[in-house]
């Protein structure tokens, strides 16, 4: 199975925890006509990490780097969930049973259903188990 097509490049940005930092990041991406498809902010004492799925990750990376931001790429996967009670449980159970640990996750729910974005410790393994269970993994090409 070609698992690579399910690996999605998320960009992560180091940000100080003070007013205006998210606006600065969002403004830079807007200027480059980069669309943000999903995003989250993780907060730790005094700083945060902004994580986003965008339609042009390379362009976003270069733009933010040129502005002096600390930017990194991280591989994540995206699973379509049933937008109904128990939907998250189904996905979480597959990974839990397989011994795959979820490092962090965030989700969005749009008109085409709900999507769970996952950063896991064993990407290949997670992709195989989710495919075998019959759940739908979204391909990288959907995002970028």
């Amino acid at each position, binding site marked *: 199975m070609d698992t690579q097509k399910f690996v999605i490049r998320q960009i992560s940005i*180091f940000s*100080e925890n003070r007013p205006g930092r998210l606006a600065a990041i969002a403004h830079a991406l807007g200027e480059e006509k980069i669309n943000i498809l999903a995003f989250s902010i993780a907060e*730790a004492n*005094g700083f945060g*990490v902004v994580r986003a799925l965008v339609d042009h990750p390379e362009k976003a990376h270069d733009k933010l780097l040129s502005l*002096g*931001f*600390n930017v*990194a790429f991280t591989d994540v996967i995206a699973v379509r969930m049933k937008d109904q009670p128990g939907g998250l449980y189904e996905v979480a159970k597959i990974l839990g049973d397989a011994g795959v640990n979820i490092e962090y996750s965030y989700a969005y729910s749009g008109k085409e259903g709900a999507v769970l974005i996952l950063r896991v410790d064993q990407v290949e393994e997670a992709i195989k188990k989710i495919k075998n269970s019959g759940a739908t993994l979204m391909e990288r090409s959907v995002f970028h």
Partner: protein
Amino acid sequence: MKSWDPRIEEMPKEDLQRMQYKLLKSLVYRLYSFSPFYHDRMKEQKVHPDDIRELSDVKKLPFMFKRDLRDNYPDKIFTSTQEELVRYHVSSGTTGKPTVVGYTQNDLNTWTTSLARALTSLGLGRGDVIQVSYGYGLFTGGLGLHYGAERIGATVIPASVGNTERQIELMQDLGATAIACTPSYLLHMGEVAEKMGVSIKKDTQLRTGVLGAEPWTDRMRTRIEDWLGIKAYDIYGTSELSGPMFCECIEQKGFHIWSDIALAEIIDPQTGEPLESGQKGELTITILQKEALPMIRYRIGDITTMDDDICACGRTHPRIQRIQGRVDDMLIIRGINVFPSQIEYALMAIPEVGQHFQIVVERKGALDDLLVRVELNTGSFSDKINDLMQVRQKVEHRLRNSLNVNVNVELVEPGSLPRFEGKAKRVIDKRSL
């Protein structure tokens, strides 16, 4: 390595000290007779010029402080008339009212001679192109280095500070072999050059840095030398002594204080007692040759040590080690003395963070709280919060070990802390004591 004036610079120590004694004696007589300020000071101290019978009797003389210059603003203690002066310099006044220094033509000549010896001692001379990126104007750095560099026959680029991109272009186009500026400005130039796609190491002729006007560390020297491919030398002086006066020689083991120009002492800042050679204390200088604004036992407020052994370069004049802190910059955190230079030194050893930092001191309840902001280096960022927490803990741990006080560290974005083109102001003390 040749000397600018071998007769003076390599003079046997006994002869040098004899010369110092004669100069001191005549200085004290002159000031006692002609300067109301020094006359009164010596009377208060109950010392008469006849009490100066050997060089070590200098310790009988009263101290002079920066506040004496402020209290006598602008020129009340000058010993020359305005007609005899050819120039003024004015200090920045960052720690209070500005101070004014006047120069006769002889004073300028002495200053320039001091720098001509110093620049020669670190290997510069005719054929060198020296970019002077200290501020020109009221600040002494620009004009001081300018005339010193011209005197040794080098070609000067009077670039002053600012407009950094243009400075880098000039450095390349005119083939600068040396630069004189603050170490933090040179680091800033290195960063700007890289953004322009220029490697100072590979794309320029630069091989010497004459760096001063702010405290820096040996580790910062190593970083500058490795990164920029130059030899970095410490230069020292303050406007009250004329300006930048003394440099490290090629040995890089402290700057030579020319004994015929200045008499250096290291004293205990609390008691004022002279300390033995090698002990750490406050640098105190008597300028032996100065007409307009003589200085007897001027307490600069810099903490350092002195080495009076003959240098490997052959010069017999004592060396002052790199300045390790300021009597007045010293922060007292929960009763412990902390120098910003210690923080800088500790940060240099941590690759995950940059060399710029900011210190914020607050009083929380009854306790002092020390916060150090450091920039997370590009390339040290991982997406994982845990990794970032570990970097922060590592910095906190290292700082606590070197300072002996608890430190909170805040990781900030690269490039977000203020850069300084003049003197760095890295401490924000919010305590209202």
